[in-house]
Structure formats: structure tokens, C-alpha cells
């Protein structure tokens, strides 16, 4: 199966792939040097990465007391890799799970993603990419421990076996891993090691509670924002109200008069403007001081974004063909189909903020010839390079600690490292002093890097059998990847693949099909938001297919089964499973309730859900969700269940009445959770049952694929109740 990731089809970037335009564009920004060096540094994924033997000592430490500390090569921010990656290693190592502890690894070459070639979390690839890597690491460590014991006992290794951190030999001999660790570490690292077959797994496939569960329940776990270093200062930034603007004048006298304020000065922003940073002893002091800055901003030459204007512009653009993403068959036949057999539909999606619960922050101490950084980063390699560049250092002079992060959803994976650059620029000014730079919630909600606003226009011609015969699809939205190093690989023929994913690769049979895209340039920074393009494409596809089923007078599950490509087995499997698990309740819904379904594949994982919805206080009340998914081997089924249960709640963000970032005169009109509101418990599904298709195939993503299916399923159910199709999000009063 073709693997769908954030980087869609991994392959080497050719030198010519970096167009002159994008080269010049990135060079023109403050980030220019970084982008070029990054591009040259990246060995973006070949289909099969070269076999690499990772040094076990960088990943596993067996302590004298028996504790086994495993380094996790990625950020933990809720997705559970801090537990599931150690499970892979510990299983092959035959480690006693009770002795296993996990640590988030600092930035280093050895911790780079085996496929992406940088240290990162994204594209739901953590388990998929490190499945083999962590298992091999565990198997190598086990082989070395086994060899050490055999040597000590002067017996062949074939007479020794391992179980729960102990090597057993002939004659009742046994040795704990902790006793063997020193001699094992001196042995050569074996090249080829056998891996277990699925039936031999002791941890993989067994629901295992999170290693970070208890410390996240008693307040003891430290997130990046909780960091406290001797002499540390706190920095807050007064960002330009319009992206890219600069101050005409700054009066910081009132700010400086507050006791505890250390300094106030200007730093560059990555959007070409200038911000004012305040450094103080504590957060509250810094906030008081920032509020007292009197800044006269210069907005000349800065384009002010305006949602009403953008909506009109996008609607017009959607009525014209864009850059071709896919074309198949003959679309001219659409014009011969009468209005009665056509669906012409226009959709609109707003900007969405990620708003991870832990506000963005980074701590940097600059010591002249070196620096130390503490950050909850999805992009350690990128951020380390950016900080080094800002400080005039080499990346290896920047010690980069990965801090536990309170959510992220893509927001901590910024190709321009804008928060880290601000933190580094501030620390440079405060040499020798650790400075924690914090974005307040207001900074976060107003600070850009949103899921782009989109418009879709679709024309469908329906055949005599009720199935679509022709489908013309135009998508309008800013490119997430333009101007980043990813553009060279993932923007093709003027089409950003992340804008059309989920449409061009639909599993439904559409004989005459065209997909095109417009990517207008707007002065609003955009970014991937958990499940990226699928956030809007799945909504469009799954609501339209529902509409087609209704028109055909066919059950919405039966219609989809009929429309599905014969080879879409992985999706068919989840459709069947959702049908089986939900039909008992779908067929006995209380008065005033209705059900809806949606199915979608993203990041290699197929997902479907059925929802039980009624309307309460003019809002959808989601009483129940039945989810089925196929993610290949479910390494930790408890985490997989958790990701899908909670991920559908995250997906409800798109339906919230206050689930949009809008612009007037260049400024976001929302600035905190009162204006931009994620789901509260009342908005989230009351119950979610998750069903995993049994599989021993290689694992695929679980972080993002839950998100796309919930909102189309809910509005499909709402149609049953109100007779209305909902094509514009957010979902306003019903």
C-alpha cells in the first residue's frame, strides 16, 4: 500500500526541484540562510532508507539497579510515543517492562527520523518509521546481553535464553541484565539480528498504560513552560498587530519603570518586521510591562488580511480552473448532463488555530561560544539550526533539550522556527542569562500559523444508476508548503499536495475526474493542522458522497460499498466493521436522533465512524460514536483506542460555533478561548467505542487519521434531522 504521510510520497529531492523562485523567496526572508542550508542538509527519504545500524548505547542504558532507560527519538505531546517506542525496543530485548523508563532524547543526528532524515514528529510517522528501528535496537541489545552471558559461562549462546531482563543458561544459571550490561557493552554490535514473529510478541499488541500517566496526574511532570533555571528571566513579545509590520516609535519608559523589568528591545520577526521584547524577572512582571509599552506601528506596505474579501475572492477563484492536480477521462461530458442530474456545490472553511494547551515557549541561554536550549519541539533539527544561525553558532554548538509538550497538533513543527528565533534573538541580547520566551494565549490565537482558509467548488454529473460519472473539483487555499524547504518536493505543477490530498487519491470510482487548485498569496502565516489537507477534503468528499447516496435513494453504507474501488480493501474493511458494530444502535435510535457516517484514509490508515446525533440548544449533541480503523499492527492498542476516542473530539473543533479565526483590517478578530473556542466536554461525543481491524501488517499512522471523519459524519446526521446540507464551517446556530 502506498504510504500517505505529511510528505506524501517520500523520494529524493532533485537539485532542480528547488526552483529559482522558491530559492529567491526563502533567501529574501530572515530565514534564508537556514532554508538553503537545510535543503542541502536534508536527505529526504528514499523509498527504502539505507540500512543503518543505530548505536544501542545512544538508545538504551541499563542501570545497576536494573532500571532500563530508553531514549525516545521524538517529542511526546500526547500521542503516546514515549510509551509505544520503548515497548517496541523492550519487547525485542525481552526486558521486564516494570523496569523500563523513557526519556525524550536531545537533538542529535542519531535521533533523526529514519525516513524523513530530520529529527521530528509529523505525518503520523513516529511508529511507522521507527517500528523496525526500535525493534532492531532491542534485538541487538538482547543479542549482546545473551553473548555476554554465554561468554561468562563458557557455553554456546544457543543454550541460553532471555526473559524479563534475565539471561538463563544451562545448569540453572541465570544473570540479570544489569549484571551483564558492562561486559555486553564491550561486545561488537551484531549486524543481523532475528526479530520476533507476531505470535512471540509480549508487549507489542498488548494494551499498555502510559509511562507518563502518574506524573501527569499529580503535577510532578515538568513541561517546557515549567522549566526553572537559576537566574532565569521571562520574556514576552509585543508582536506587530499586522504580520510583517514594524514600530515607527517605541516608548518603553512606563514598562521599564516596573520593578523586576530587566530590559526592553527590538528583535526581528521572520515575516520581515520587527517586534518588541520585554525581559523581566517573572511572567506577571513581563506581562504588566508589555501592556505598558506604547508602540506606534508602521503598517505601510503591509497587506491587511480581510476575511470577507478573501471569501469573495476565493469563491470567484473556485469558479475558474486552477493548476491541474489530476485529470482523468473526459470532463466535457459534464456540460451535457442536465441540472436535475447534477450537484453543483460550494464549500467554505475558515482559518483554524491549533491552540495547544501549553502555550508556546522556548528557553535559551547563550554563552558566547555555545548555547543551551529547552523546547517542546516537533522539529528539533530545524529549530536547532535556526537557533544556531540566529546566534552565529554551528548547530553542534547548540545543546538542544527536548521538553515534554502540552499538545501541538502541528503547531510545534514550524519550518521557519519563528518562536525559537525570537527566543534566540532575545537570549543573544541577554548573554549568559537563561531566558524563557513565552507566547501568551493571546499571542497564540492571534499569531498566525493557522490551518489555511479554503474554498471548494465541485460539479458532479450523476449517471442513470445514481453513481457519479463526472466530477470537477477546484480547491482554493494558501499553500502551506510554499516558501519552505518542503516546497521543492511537495509542490508540483503549482499544486501543493497537502491541499488536494484526500481528493486526488479518493478510493471511490470516478471515471471522469479533474482536480485543480489555486494557491493565493495572503499575508497570514499558515501551517499544517492535525491531519492537514484531510481536515477539509474528507469533509467535502464524505458529505458529497452522502448526498449522492440520498439522491440515489440508497442506504449510505451500501452506496459507499458500491462506489468503492475493488482494490480498496483496507477501507472496505472498516466500512464493514463500522456497519457491523453500529447497526445494532443505528437501527434503534430514539426519537429526534439521527445517524451519519463518514470514511476516509489518511497517513496510511483507514478510518470510519458512525455517529448518533440530536439537536440540543441549537447545537449538535453527539451521543455516541462508533469508530473502526485499520492501522496495520496496533503496537499499543490502548493508545490507539485513546488517539481515536480523543481525536474525534479534537475533530469537533471544526464544528464549533466559535471555531474560526477571522480577519478584519489585518487583525485576527479572536484573541483567546472566549472568541476561538475548542470543544468543551458538552460539545464532545459522550461515548466513543473504537474497533481495530486485527492486522499484522506494518503499522501506519494513528495521530491524525481520527480527525477528518467526525465532522462530515455529524453534518450527514444533521441532514437527516433538518434536511439541510452544511457546506460552510464553522457550523453556526442550527
Amino acid at each position, binding site marked *: 500500500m502506498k504510504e500517505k504521510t505529511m510528505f506524501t510520497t517520500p523520494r529524493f529531492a532533485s537539485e532542480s526541484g528547488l526552483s529559482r523562485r522558491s530559492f529567491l523567496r526563502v533567501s529574501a526572508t530572515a530565514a534564508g540562510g537556514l532554508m538553503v542550508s537545510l535543503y542541502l542538509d536534508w536527505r529526504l527519504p528514499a523509498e527504502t532508507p539505507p540500512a543503518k545500524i543505530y548505536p544501542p548505547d545512544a538508545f538504551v542504558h541499563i542501570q545497576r539497579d536494573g532500571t532500563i532507560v530508553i531514549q525516545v527519538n521524538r517529542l511526546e*505531546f*500526547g*500521542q*503516546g510515543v514515549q510509551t509505544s517506542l520503548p515497548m517496541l525496543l523492550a519487547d525485542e530485548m525481552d526486558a521486564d517492562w516494570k523496569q523500563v523508563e523513557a526519556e525524550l532524547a536531545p537533538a542529535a543526528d542519531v535521533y533523526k527520523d529514519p525516513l524523513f532524515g530530520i529529527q521530528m514528529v509529523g505525518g503520523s510517522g513516529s511508529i511507522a518509521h521507527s517500528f523496525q528501528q526500535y525493534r532492531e535496537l532491542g534485538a541487538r541489545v538482547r543479542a549482546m546481553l545473551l553473548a555476554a552471558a554465554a561468554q561468562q559461562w563458557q557455553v554456546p549462546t544457543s543454550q541460553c535464553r532471555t526473559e524479563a531482563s534475565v539471561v538463563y543458561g544451562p545448569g540453572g544459571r541465570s544473570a540479570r541484565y544489569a549484571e551483564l550490561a558492562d561486559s555486553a557493552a564491550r561486545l561488537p554490535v551484531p549486524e543481523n539480528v532475528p526479530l520476533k514473529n507476531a505470535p512471540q510478541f509480549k508487549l507489542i499488541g498488548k494494551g499498555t*498504560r*502510559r509511562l*507518563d*500517566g*502518574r506524573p*501527569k*496526574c*499529580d*503535577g*510532578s*511532570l*515538568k*513541561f517546557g*513552560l*515549567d522549566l*526553572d533555571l537559576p537566574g532565569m528571566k521571562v520574556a514576552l513579545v509585543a508582536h506587530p498587530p499586522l504580520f510583517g509590520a514594524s514600530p515607527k516609535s517605541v516608548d518603553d519608559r512606563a514598562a521599564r519603570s516596573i*520593578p523586576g523589568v530587566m530590559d526592553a528591545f527590538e528583535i526581528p520577526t521572520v515575516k520581515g518586521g520587527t517586534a518588541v521584547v520585554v525581559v523581566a524577572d*517573572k*511572567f*506577571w512582571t513581563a506581562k*504588566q510591562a508589555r501592556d505598558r509599552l506604547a508602540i506606534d506601528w508602521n503598517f505601510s506596505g503591509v497587506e491587511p488580511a480581510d476575511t470577507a474579501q478573501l471569501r469573495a475572492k476565493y469563491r470567484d477563484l473556485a469558479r475558474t480552473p486552477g493548476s491541474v492536480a489530476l485529470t482523468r477521462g473526459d470532463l466535457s461530458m459534464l456540460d451535457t448532463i442536465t441540472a436535475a442530474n447534477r450537484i453543483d456545490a460550494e464549500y467554505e472553511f475558515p482559518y483554524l488555530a491549533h491552540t*495547544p*494547551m*501549553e*502555550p508556546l515557549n522556548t528557553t535559551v541561554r547563550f554563552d558566547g561560544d555555545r548555547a543551551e536550549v529547552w523546547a517542546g519541539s516537533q522539529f528539533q533539527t530545524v529549530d536547532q539550526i535556526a537557533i544556531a544561525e540566529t546566534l552565529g553558532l554551528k548547530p553542534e554548538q547548540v545543546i538542544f533539550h527536548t521538553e*515534554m*509538550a*502540552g*499538545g501541538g*497538533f502541528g503547531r510545534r513543527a514550524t519550518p521557519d522556527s519563528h518562536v525559537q528565533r525570537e527566543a534566540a534573538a532575545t537570549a543573544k541580547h541577554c548573554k549568559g542569562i537563561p531566558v524563557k520566551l513565552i507566547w*501568551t*494565549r*493571546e499571542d497564540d490565537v492571534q499569531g498566525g500559523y493557522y490551518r489555511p482558509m479554503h474554498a471548494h467548488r465541485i460539479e458532479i454529473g450523476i449517471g442513470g444508476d445514481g453513481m457519479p460519472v463526472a466530477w470537477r473539483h477546484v480547491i482554493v487555499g494558501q499553500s502551506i508548503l510554499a516558501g519552505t524547504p518542503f516546497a521543492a518536493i511537495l509542490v508540483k505543477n503549482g499544486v501543493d499536495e497537502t491541499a488536494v490530498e484526500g481528493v486526488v487519491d479518493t478510493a471511490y470510482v470516478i471515471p471522469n475526474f479533474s482536480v485543480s487548485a489555486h494557491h493565493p498569496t495572503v499575508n497570514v502565516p499558515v501551517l499544517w493542522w492535525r491531519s492537514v489537507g484531510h481536515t477539509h477534503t474528507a469533509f467535502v468528499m464524505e458529505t458529497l458522497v452522502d448526498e449522492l447516496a440520498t439522491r440515489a435513494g440508497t442506504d449510505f453504507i451500501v452506496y459507499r460499498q458500491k462506489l468503492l474501488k475493488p482494490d480498496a480493501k483496507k477501507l472496505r474493511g472498516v466500512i464493514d466493521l463500522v456497519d457491523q458494530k453500529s447497526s445494532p444502535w443505528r437501527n434503534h435510535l430514539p426519537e429526534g436522533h439521527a445517524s451519519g457516517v463518514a470514511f476516509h484514509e489518511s497517513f496510511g490508515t483507514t478510518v470510519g465512524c458512525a455517529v448518533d446525533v440530536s439537536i440540543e440548544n441549537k447545537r449538535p449533541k453527539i451521543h455516541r460514536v462508533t469508530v473502526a480503523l485499520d492501522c496495520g499492527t496496533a503496537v499499543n492498542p*490502548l493508545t490507539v483506542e*485513546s*488517539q481515536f*476516542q*480523543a*481525536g*474525534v*473530539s*479534537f475533530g*469537533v473543533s471544526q464544528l464549533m460555533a466559535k471555531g474560526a479565526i477571522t480577519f478584519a483590517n489585518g487583525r485576527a478578530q479572536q484573541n*483567546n*478561548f*472566549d472568541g476561538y473556542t*475548542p*470543544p*468543551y*466536554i*458538552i460539545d*464532545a*461525543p*459522550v*461515548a*466513543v467505542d473504537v474497533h481495530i481491524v486485527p492486522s499484522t501488517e506494518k503499522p501506519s499512522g494513528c495521530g491524525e487519521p481520527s480527525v477528518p471523519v467526525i465532522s462530515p459524519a455529524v453534518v450527514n446526521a444533521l441532514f437527516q434531522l433538518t434536511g439541510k446540507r452544511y457546506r460552510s464551517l464553522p457550523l453556526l446556530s442550527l
Partner: protein
Amino acid sequence: VQTYKLMVNGETREVTVDPGTPLLWVLREDLKMTGTKYGCGISACGACTVHLGGVATRSCVVPVSLIGDRPIVTIEAIGQDRVGRAVQDAWVAEDVVQCGYCQSGQIMSAVALLKSRQKPTDADIEESMGGNICRCGTYVRIRKAIKAASQQLA
């Protein structure tokens, strides 16, 4: 600045701060108790929930000058309480947390709920937990854990 005596988790603590400083930041920065989290600063997310005089309270909007002699209990000490311990244990057993950042506040709200209603209904849960955002969306397991803790305490 002014000096205040606060009763935090059963101990008297003295802090010298600006009277307008929210309790949240006094806890986090002056008392170095970082279990209580900053999420929004406008009492819209509940990450900063503590018990003030026995009432679940958003510490981000309570200035230190208004606390007086009301006792403060935070996530660091809630496990010493029978209900608090049961809730934390249920949270761990149900594997509720994901990123975990909101969970101090969720747990403080849940403990307050179970102290006032031993057998909360779904509606009670929605009301008492209604101001706590979990951005990861762990609400289904939060409900389950509250019910499990309620049973365990019965």
C-alpha cells in the same frame, strides 16, 4: 509590592509580590509549584484550577490580595485527600491523559465534583467539568474515570 501569608496545602507560605499578581503565578513562580497550569489567563480553560476555601477556582483570575486566609489546595497535595487520591488513581487506571497539560485542572474539578456529589450523573459531570478544556479531547475517558472513582469511593 506587598507581603502575603498564604495557607497552601496545609502550610503557611509567605510571598512578597505585586498585589495584582494572580494566584496562578504566585504558585508557579514564587512558590515554584508548577503543577497548576497556565492555559488562557481569562478563566476560560480551567487548566489553573485549584481549591480555594474548598471551592474549585480558576487561579489565573484571582489576585493574591483577595485570598485572605482561605486555604489553597493544589494538584501537588490533592493526593493526600481520600477523594483526590481516588480520582488520581482512576485517572491512571483509565489511562486518561494524553499530553496531560490540562489534567491537573481536570482532576481538581473532578475532585470538587465528587466531594459535592458522590454519584454524579452525566449532566452533573458536564456541568462541573464544563469549563475545563482538554485540547487532546480525552473527555470520554474523563467521564469514565470520574464514574470509576465514584464507585471506588462508594
